[in-house]
């Protein structure tokens, strides 16, 4: 039976603590669009996406109004584009990017993810062509997001792909240098990429997924922080307990939205992604949760431990609230998208090395970090390799989304606007890993037994 306290708590969470569903993402398989003729394939891709996602935005808005739950983004993820490109005689990938862009614009979604390639073990047909086209595709389209999986626990790391991505990340920033290098903000390099992730920029619809499905990503850092603030000086066992309870409530809301969207669109429900996704808005920050737990500033000693507690408690609370959990599921730490992280990075309390340590215990990886424009492709590739190694050895997803700030250096700012936020350019260790990266080849998959 409902009581007044519960009703007011929900309303308070939505109105004052930024509780929202971050995204409804429709995953669409493009495997049946493959064709040896590129133009025919592009037409099929456009038709299939617009046929299935025609009502996605309107359905999301209807649910938003009827349930009173803000749903911030409606998005589409598709089969990694390189997989469908493989069938074409002419592998001019950019045409496919344009077709995806037209489809995204026609559906009215915020982003379309899946301009992707999975090359953890090696390059298949179409993979290199697609990867080389990423800088142009991200510069010339508005809605397309791209990701490349360069490693996994089972396959090891494809260091040729890592070296390539160091160069591609830099080129992507250069081609959009007149727009705050925003292209690089839409490009993620993964290790152990999840195939059902609803969050951008890394969303794609993996080959093991059904034809079409609905995945939902929840949010709510503000709600967690407020609950901890209300609890005052309790011990860490109690802190974990409060986070679990709050995550449960947040996830139940996500599950409700996912079930409803799936029913209305006639598309199977895939997963709820139990993530704490911050926004640049004040009061919606993961860093502020860590500070509420008791740190003077995010980035100081204690940050990794506090984040480990937070990440684990979010999962424990969320798992029981949803019938199927997947995607990235954990706390996100994107620097430019989080008011507390921005402040900590600006003050110098949060540095790249600490962020790397944090990624070992939370969801995702080095995310939305502005680095100096003169950072070499080899250094970017080595950042990717380090981060991927953490993911590979620990059997978890890690990712790198760094934005080389072309023409800028430490202390300058890049400002993307909207949910992508803004942030300072952070210092990068410039010592050259060129010989290491230049070797190429593969880092073998790690032992997963004999762990002592």
């Amino acid at each position, binding site marked *: 039976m*409902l009581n*007044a306290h*519960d*009703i*007011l*708590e*929900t*309303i308070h969470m939505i*109105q004052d603590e930024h509780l929202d569903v971050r995204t409804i993402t429709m995953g669409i398989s493009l495997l049946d669009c493959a064709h040896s003729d590129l133009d025919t394939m592009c037409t099929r891709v456009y038709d299939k996406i617009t046929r299935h996602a025609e009502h996605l935005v309107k359905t999301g808005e*209807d649910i938003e*109004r*009827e*349930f*009173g*739950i803000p749903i911030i983004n409606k998005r589409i993820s598709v089969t990694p584009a390189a997989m469908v490109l493989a069938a074409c005689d002419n592998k001019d990938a950019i045409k496919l990017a344009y077709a995806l862009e037209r489809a995204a614009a026609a559906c009215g979604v915020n982003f379309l993810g899946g301009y992707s390639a999975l090359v953890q073990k090696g390059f298949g047909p179409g993979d290199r062509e697609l990867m080389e086209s990423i800088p142009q595709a991200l510069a010339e389209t508005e809605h397309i997001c791209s990701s490349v999986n360069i490693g996994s626990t089972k396959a090891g790391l494809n260091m040729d792909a890592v070296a390539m991505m160091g160069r591609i990340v830099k080129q992507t920033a250069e081609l959009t240098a007149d727009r705050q290098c925003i292209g690089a903000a839409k490009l993620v390099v993964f290790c152990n990429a999840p195939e059902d992730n609803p969050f951008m920029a890394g969303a794609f619809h993996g080959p093991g997924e059904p034809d079409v499905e609905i995945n939902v990503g929840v949010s709510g850092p503000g709600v967690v922080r407020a609950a901890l603030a209300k609890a005052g000086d309790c011990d860490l066992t109690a802190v974990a307990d409060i986070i679990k309870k709050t995550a449960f*409530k947040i996830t*139940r*809301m996500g*599950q*409700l939205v996912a079930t409803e969207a799936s029913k209305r669109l006639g598309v199977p429900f895939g997963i709820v992604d139990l993530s704490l996704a911050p926004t640049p808005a004040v009061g919606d920050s993961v860093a502020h949760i860590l500070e509420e737990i008791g740190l003077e500033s995010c980035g100081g000693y204690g940050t990794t431990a506090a984040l480990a507690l937070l990440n684990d408690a979010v999962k424990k609370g969320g798992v029981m609230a949803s019938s199927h959990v997947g995607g990235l599921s954990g706390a996100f730490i994107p620097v430019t998208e989080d008011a507390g992280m921005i402040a900590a990075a600006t003050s110098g309390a949060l540095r790249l090395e600490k962020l790397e340590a944090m990624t070992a215990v939370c969801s995702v990886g080095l995310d939305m970090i502005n680095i100096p424009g003169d950072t070499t492709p080899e250094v970017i590739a080595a950042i990717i390799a380090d981060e991927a190694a953490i993911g590979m050895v620990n059997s978890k997803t890690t990712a790198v989304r760094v934005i080389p700030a072309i023409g800028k250096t430490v202390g300058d700012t890049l400002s993307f606007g909207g949910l992508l936020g803004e942030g300072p350019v952070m210092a990068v260790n410039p010592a050259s890993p060129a010989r290491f990266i230049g070797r190429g080849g593969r880092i073998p998959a790690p032992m997963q037994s004999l762990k002592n």
Partner: protein
Amino acid sequence: MKRAVITVIGHDTVGILANIATACAEHKVNVLEVTQSVLQDMFVMMMMVDVTACDIPFAEFAEEMAGLGKKMNLSVQAMNEEIFNAMHTI
């Protein structure tokens, strides 16, 4: 039966209940339960209503309620009951 919760929060003035109830009646929304309290001069009211027979889509009804609230300088929300059930019951 499709139920919704209407919450009204704001400074107490004459006719709040009457105005909300009238708007409900106009759209064939049946009031099932009402609780209200006034703490100092803050007015908090919650209504459980049956919107099965509502003559307009619920989203529009919710917007109309919010608009009515604005006119009276109150925060008025009409929300599907399911969200509260989902979040607060196991």
